[in-house]
C-alpha cells in the first residue's frame, strides 16, 4: 500500500464524515466546518489516487490548489452570511423551513 492510497482512503472517510456533519448538527459553524472536512476529503482523494503509483502528479496538485481557493471563497461567504443571520436573529442556526408558508 503506497502513501497515495493511505491519503485517498483517509480522504474517502473524511468525505463521508463531512457529509454526515453537514446534515446532522444544527449549529451553523459546525455545518460550515463539516463542509470543509468534506472538501478536504475530496482533495485528498484527488491527490492520493493521482500518485498511488508513487510518483507525484502535478495535475491533481494544481487542481487541488484551485479547489482550496474555491473552498476558501465559499467558506468566507458562508461565514459572513452566518454572522449576519446571528446578528439578525441572535441565533447561529437556520430558522425552521416552514417559516414562509
Amino acid at each position, binding site marked *: 500500500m503506497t502513501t497515495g492510497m493511505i491519503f*485517498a482512503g483517509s*480522504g474517502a472517510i473524511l*468525505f463521508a464524515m*463531512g*457529509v454526515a456533519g*453537514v446534515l446532522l448538527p444544527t449549529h*451553523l459553524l459546525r*455545518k*460550515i466546518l463539516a*463542509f470543509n472536512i*468534506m*472538501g478536504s*476529503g*475530496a*482533495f485528498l*482523494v*484527488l491527490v*492520493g*489516487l*493521482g500518485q*498511488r503509483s508513487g510518483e507525484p502528479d502535478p*495535475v*491533481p496538485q494544481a*487542481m487541488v490548489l*484551485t*479547489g482550496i481557493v*474555491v473552498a476558501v*471563497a*465559499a467558506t468566507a*461567504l*458562508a461565514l459572513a*452570511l*452566518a454572522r*449576519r*443571520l446571528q446578528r*439578525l*436573529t441572535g441565533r447561529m442556526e*437556520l*430558522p425552521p*423551513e416552514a*417559516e*414562509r*408558508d
Partner: protein
Amino acid sequence: MTSAALDPLAWLILLPMFWATLAFVLGLGRGAWLAIIGIALQLGLALALAGRLLAGGVPVHPVGGWGAPLGIDLAVDGLAATMLLLTQAVALPLAVYARSYFTGDSSERRFFWPLVGFLLAAMNALFVSADLFNLYVTLELLGLAAVGLVAAGGKVGQTAAALRYLLSTLVGSGAYLLGVAMIYGAYGSVSLSTLAPLVDRQAPAAVHLAAGLMLVGLTVKTALFPFHFWLPPAHGGAPAPVSALLSALVVKASYYLILRLWLGILAPLLAPGAAIAWLAGLLGCGAILWGSFKAIGTPNLKMLVAYSTVAQIGYLFIVFPLLGRTSPGDAALQGSVLHAVAHALAKSAMFTAAGVLVKATGQETIDGLAGVATRLPLTLFAFALAGVTLMGLPPSAGFLAKWLLLGAAIGQGQWLLVAVIVAGGLLAAAYVFRVLRHAFLPAPVAVSSRPVPRMLEWVAFGLAASSVLLGLRGMEILRLLAAGGSS
C-alpha cells in the same frame, strides 16, 4: 488566425466577465447599460455560434492551444448551443426589466449587475466546457453568484434562504468533485473527449460510484424533489428579476450537465431502463405532484411561482426512463429540452409579472390581488399566457414539449408516466386559475395602487408571448438540438 480572435465560444465567457468586473469598478448600482449592451452582444455571439453549428461546423476551442487531455477544451454541440441561445435570449429582457425594477438605493441593486455578469459568465462557461474539473469550477462560480443575488436583500428570510441555498449547493458540488477525483484516479484524465472512449460497461466499481456521486450532487443542485427544500425560499424571497433568472436559467444549468454526462461519458454505464433512471423518473413524478400541491396551497404569490418551478423540474427528470430504449428515445430528449426552453420563458414571464403585481399592490399575498384585473390587464394577461405554456395548451412550446414526452411515454407503454404528465398539466391549471380568480375579484374599497413603469409590464408580456409563440417555431429548435452530432 483572425478567425480565432473572433471565436464566439471564447467571447461568450470573456465578455460577461469583463463587463461584470467593469460594472463593479464603475460603482455601486452602476453598469445597467453596460450589462444590456453586453448581453445584446452575447446574444449575437450565441446566434453566430448556432449558425456555425447549423452550417456543419463543430466548434472546438483548445484553451491555451494545448488541447485535451493536457489543456482544457471548450466544445459546442446542438444541446450546448440551444442552452447558450436560451440563456442570452432570456437574460436580455430580464436585464431591461431589472433596470426599471430597482429604484433608488435599494440594497439589492448595489451589486446586482456584477453578480449577474458573473452568473451569465458561469453559465456560458458551463455550457461549453468539455473538462470535468473545469466544470466543477464553473458550478462553484454559478453557485456563489446565485447565492450572492439571493443574499443581497439582507433581511432575515433572505439571509437564511441564501445560507440554506449555499450549503445545499456546496454539498452538491462536493459530491460532484469527489466523483471527478475518482474518475481522474481511474483513468488519469478529466477531459470528456479523452474519457469517452475509455469508459465502458466493464468499468471498475469506483467509476460506477463516481458516476453516482456526480449525478446525486447535480440533482441536489437542480432541486429535484426531495432535494427541493432550498429552492422555494431562495427563489420566492429574492427580488423579481433575480427570481426569474434563478428559476428560468440557473436550475437548468446543472440539469444540462446531468444530461450531458448521462448521454455522454456515463452512457456506457447506464443500461436502458436502469434502476437509477427509474429512480430519477419517479422522483420527477414526485416533484410534479408535490410541487403542484404546495403551489395550490401557499398564500404567497411568489412562493406559488417558486413551487411551480419545483413541479416543472419534475418534467425534466421524467425523461430518464424513456431515454435510449428505441428510436422514440430521441423524442423524449427533444421533449425535455423543449420543456426546459418553454419553462425558462414562461417562468421568467411569471416572475416578472408577479414582480409587477407585488410592486403595484404592495402585497405579496394572493388574496391581495383582488382588483388587479382592471388595473393591470397587460400584466395579468402575461401571467395567464405563461400559465398556458405551463399547462401545456396548444400552440405553446409547453404543448409541443408535453406532446413529445407523452408520445414517447405512450410509445413505450409507460402508463404511470403518461398519467403524471397529464395530471401535472391539470394541477398547473389549478394554481394558475387560483391567481386569476383572485385577480378578477372586485377591489376592496380603500385600495391604493402604486404606479409601475410600463416597461416592466411589456417585458413580462413579451416573455409570455414568446413562450406561447415559440411553439410555432419548435422545429427550428429541434433542428439546432440535432446539429453537431448531439443526441
